[in-house]
């Protein structure tokens, strides 16, 4: 018999649960955080805009949690993953759980600072636009589908936050100073975008390929371009590198989850 060259069997790529949870937790935590503006927006149009974007993010989280729940089995659902996991189980970037204010202790209550909100949304959207764009062609069809939908939403989030970043940066003396302070406060947390941890390695081994060099180049270009237009100085991203995606969080996530999860935990299994 003649030797037949066998075509390598196309094996379906399945994104690891941990990576799906990382993406989902990012979305749900920022969605919950930004929802704090609901009813408190600086103007009604922005109030609606932020609530809209929170719903985009929560929608992304639902898709990702559902996919993770399917892989986990054992009765896991999007709800058990969002509402019945605790701080060390969450794999979001620390950046996304921080309050809408410069450094604070966890229990402090203070005014929400729109500059911080805008700066964070911008730094995150500038990452997610190129990331979803790459994941659109992921070998895992489920992840690729979620990425294609999320890319449109992230593109709008980038447009919205960039617009305000420029307006406030290149605005009055006060708005410029507050925008700069927000960036200086948040920029060190972006170091976590680029650490290559067990999370990324596991995903890579499973066949989820991200070109991190390209991603960083895209992110840097988006950030530099916007900051130049906003007449803001790019602060150094140095100091402690956060490890939220490994479950080591700031003191703020517990308070956020307590608020988000309390109703479901008080009435488990309730439907409406």
């Amino acid at each position: 018999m003649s030797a037949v060259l066998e075509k390598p069997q196309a094996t379906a790529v399945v994104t690891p649960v941990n990576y799906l949870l990382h993406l989902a937790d990012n979305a749900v935590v920022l969605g919950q955080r930004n929802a704090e503006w609901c009813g408190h927006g600086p103007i009604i149009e922005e109030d609606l805009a932020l609530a809209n974007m929170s719903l985009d993010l929560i929608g992304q989280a639902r898709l990702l949690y559902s996919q993770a729940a399917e892989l986990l089995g054992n009765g896991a659902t999007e709800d058990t993953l969002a509402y019945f996991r605790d701080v060390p189980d969450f794999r979001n970037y620390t950046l996304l759980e921080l309050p809408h204010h410069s450094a604070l202790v966890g229990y402090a209550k203070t005014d929400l600072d729109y500059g911080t909100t805008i700066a964070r949304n911008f730094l995150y959207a500038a990452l997610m636009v190129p990331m979803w764009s790459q994941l659109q062609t992921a070998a895992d069809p489920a992840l690729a589908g979620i990425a294609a939908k999320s890319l449109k939403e992230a593109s709008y989030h980038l447009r919205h936050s960039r617009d305000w970043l420029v307006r406030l940066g290149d605005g009055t003396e006060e708005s410029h100073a507050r925008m700069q302070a927000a960036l200086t406060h948040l920029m060190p947390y972006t170091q976590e975008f680029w650490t290559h941890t067990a999370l990324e390695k596991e995903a890579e081994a499973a066949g989820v390929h991200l070109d991190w060099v390209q991603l960083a180049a895209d992110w840097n270009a988006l950030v530099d371009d916007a900051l130049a237009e906003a007449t803001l100085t790019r602060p150094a991203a140095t100091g402690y590198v956060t490890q939220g995606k490994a479950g080591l969080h700031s003191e703020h996530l517990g308070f956020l989850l307590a608020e988000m999860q309390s109703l479901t935990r008080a009435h488990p299994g309730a439907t409406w």
Partner: protein
Amino acid sequence: MTATNTPALKEWPLWEVFVRSKQGLEHKHCGSLHAADAQQALVMARDVYTRRQEGVSIWVVPSVAITASNPDDKGELFDPAADKIYRHPTFYEIPEEVGHM
């Protein structure tokens, strides 16, 4: 910061928002909002007026660009048309060949 001669606006101007729905051929007035400039008005109109898939296209127009008729002139402007029902094309037989008009 770049030196600019335009001071920051204390009051944002008003914009009228027009949205064209998927089926509609024309943009319809759907409301108004305050925004610093036209681009911002567009973005805000998207968030305020198209959340339920109302539209596929948005126009914003500065409210000051609109000249409106005076409600007090209603009588002289519109009442004279009231007794001229022959202006409605209901008195004509439309030939079959014309089809839907």
